[in-house]
């Protein structure tokens, strides 16, 4: 198998994970796709080291998080005002959400529907709340790590996460009490 084929296989295996990581942070399909491409181009530059390394998934995720946060901080000053007002990202709240194919084909559609609702609610959160919430719950980062990563105080991180949870609770309402795990 050539290097290109091996790399294509790696890309196929990890593209959903990398895209999801970027998408949940930047909440824009086009931007998440650009970031994912950049992640894989960087991976290709270091493919000699990464090929066959069991930690490749972690490396890709870290790079995806860093590039997403860089992207957000780069455009924060220019676009934050209007992006918060407009919230008109075509890929944001209106776009259809498509999950990677489930392993269990008999997964209940109700679970899928609830997941869609969570994704939608997540995308509708203001960036200042969404980013720390995603880093805490989906990337398993601690409050202190998030504060250091975002360059804000610990108190702000905690407040933003608390507000984000409040907002999600309001949006999701009683469905939050349901069982989120797919039934076997």
């Amino acid at each position, binding site marked *: 198998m050539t290097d290109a084929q091996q790399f294509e296989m790696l890309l196929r295996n990890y593209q959903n994970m990398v*895209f999801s990581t970027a998408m949940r942070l930047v909440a824009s399909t086009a931007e998440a796709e650009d970031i994912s491409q950049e992640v894989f181009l960087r991976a290709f530059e270091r493919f000699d080291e990464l090929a066959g390394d069991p930690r490749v998934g972690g490396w890709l995720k870290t790079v995806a998080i860093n590039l997403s946060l860089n992207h957000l901080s780069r455009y924060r000053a220019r676009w934050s005002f209007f992006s918060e007002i407009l919230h008109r990202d075509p890929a944001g709240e209106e776009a259809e959400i498509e999950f990677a194919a489930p392993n269990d084909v008999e997964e209940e559609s109700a679970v899928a529907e609830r997941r869609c609702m969570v994704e939608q609610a997540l995308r509708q959160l203001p960036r200042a709340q969404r980013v720390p919430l995603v880093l805490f719950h989906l990337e398993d980062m601690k409050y202190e790590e998030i504060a250091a990563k975002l360059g804000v105080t610990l108190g702000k991180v905690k407040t933003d996460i608390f507000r984000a949870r409040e907002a999600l609770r309001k949006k999701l309402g009683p469905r939050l009490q349901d069982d989120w795990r797919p039934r076997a």
Partner: protein
Amino acid sequence: MNLEQEQELEIGRALQGLPDLAAPPSLLTRTMNALEQPAPWRLWTWTKWPVSVRIAFFVMALAAMAAVVVGWREFEPGLLAAAHRCLAPAASAGKCFWNVLGALAGALALAVEHLGKGFMLACLVAAAGACAVCAGFGTIFVRFALAKPGRSPL
């Protein structure tokens, strides 16, 4: 368990249950295309240019710098006179502007002296208040103008 812990648990369960999103099919294609057709070397950072091109560029940069230095030494008197002729009107306008600024600063100093610091402070507060009102109305206007139908703009 307090409210915050309960909330953390609920939201955590909901978020951690999310599977990966499907990457757009174009991601694979465009990434592989980008790898097969890398950007031309002139778009790379200088340190990644081919060595031969870097040497040629360095030599050309040295030659250009030498040309500038030699040219300056050769034509300096004529150039200075020409520059003086070209810049004289602009310099005159600049001097005039500077004088106006000086006069305004003097007037401001006199006003502060005669009207009192309290009055000037009140003027500054009023100006800041006016700015805040303008920004507030502007924000409300933008929100109303760009709000989606059926959704509260505020």
